[in-house]
């Protein structure tokens, strides 16, 4: 399976994004953004932000064009990098859910603890990207107390 890191290297080495911008192939760039989002390689907020930036590039005059194009490329690479650098939310949530089951089945938490912790996990599931990490860290610590 191709990792995010390999994709990043390929994007950077081939210079494909700058070439597409230089040739003003905005349709392909737009398709690229959507494909990256559909594959989970960029977040929804990054998709929206980058799509707006692309729109600005299409309307930019010659002077502004190069500056915006350079920014776009950097931001896109950064968005993929950030996404790949942290463990995917899906893995973290799944691990927590399984841990709750184990704790309950081993008799380490009561049914009311299970409900309380499940509702807490719901809050983490609903959290935005910034809040997610903080809440997940707190939750992990809380579960560790029961595991001891």
């Amino acid at each position, binding site marked *: 399976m191709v990792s995010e890191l390999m994709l990043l290297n390929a994007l950077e080495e081939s210079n494909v994004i700058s070439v597409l911008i230089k040739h003003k192939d905005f349709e392909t760039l737009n398709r690229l953004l959507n494909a990256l989002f*559909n*594959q*989970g390689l960029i977040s*929804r907020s990054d998709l929206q932000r980058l799509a707006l930036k692309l729109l600005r590039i299409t309307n930019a005059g010659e002077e502004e064009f190069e500056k915006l194009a350079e920014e776009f490329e950097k931001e896109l690479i950064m968005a993929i990098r950030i996404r790949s650098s942290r463990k995917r939310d*899906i893995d973290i*949530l*799944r691990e*927590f*859910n*399984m841990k*709750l*089951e184990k704790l*309950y089945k081993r008799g380490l938490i009561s049914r009311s603890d*299970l*409900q309380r912790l*499940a*509702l807490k*996990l*719901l*809050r*983490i*599931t*609903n959290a935005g990207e910034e809040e997610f990490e903080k809440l997940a860290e707190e939750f992990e610590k809380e579960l560790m107390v029961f595991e001891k």
Partner: protein
Amino acid sequence: MSFEHAGEEIFDILFRRILEYNHINYIPNFRGIDYLISRELIFVELEDTVHEIYNATYQMLRNIIPIAQLYYAPIVIAIPRPELPELLLSPLAYFFRKTSGFNVRRELWIVLSERKLIKIIESKVTPSEILNSISRIIEIKLDKHGKLTEKSAKRLLSELRKYT
């Protein structure tokens, strides 16, 4: 008795029997999804534990939603009755949140037995047409960002406990 953790193959046999008993036509293993129900064009992914709902959601986002969107088709994750309904909350919320904003109808089916299902759907959305005669429909409220609220989660829990 719950079929949870019995394995996807066992749950698959049970699910197929439900479809066949109710004379519902289907295509198995369609584009990486377990079932395409042809009468109403419903995409169904089976999972044998609540924990697998997260991955099923990801798979749907990648493979199915681009097609389902064209038809405003229902996308369904079907699971056996969970032993601990509390553990359904986060995966269910993940499914509804991640698939919000797409032109699809979302449903989570809980298979209680060969003759009984629960369909969890978003409130004010018309449920899929099939199997309604054997289904109990539970509506959940989502906020404007597609998130399952704590209040709605608690209400859902007390409903589900009647069946576990």
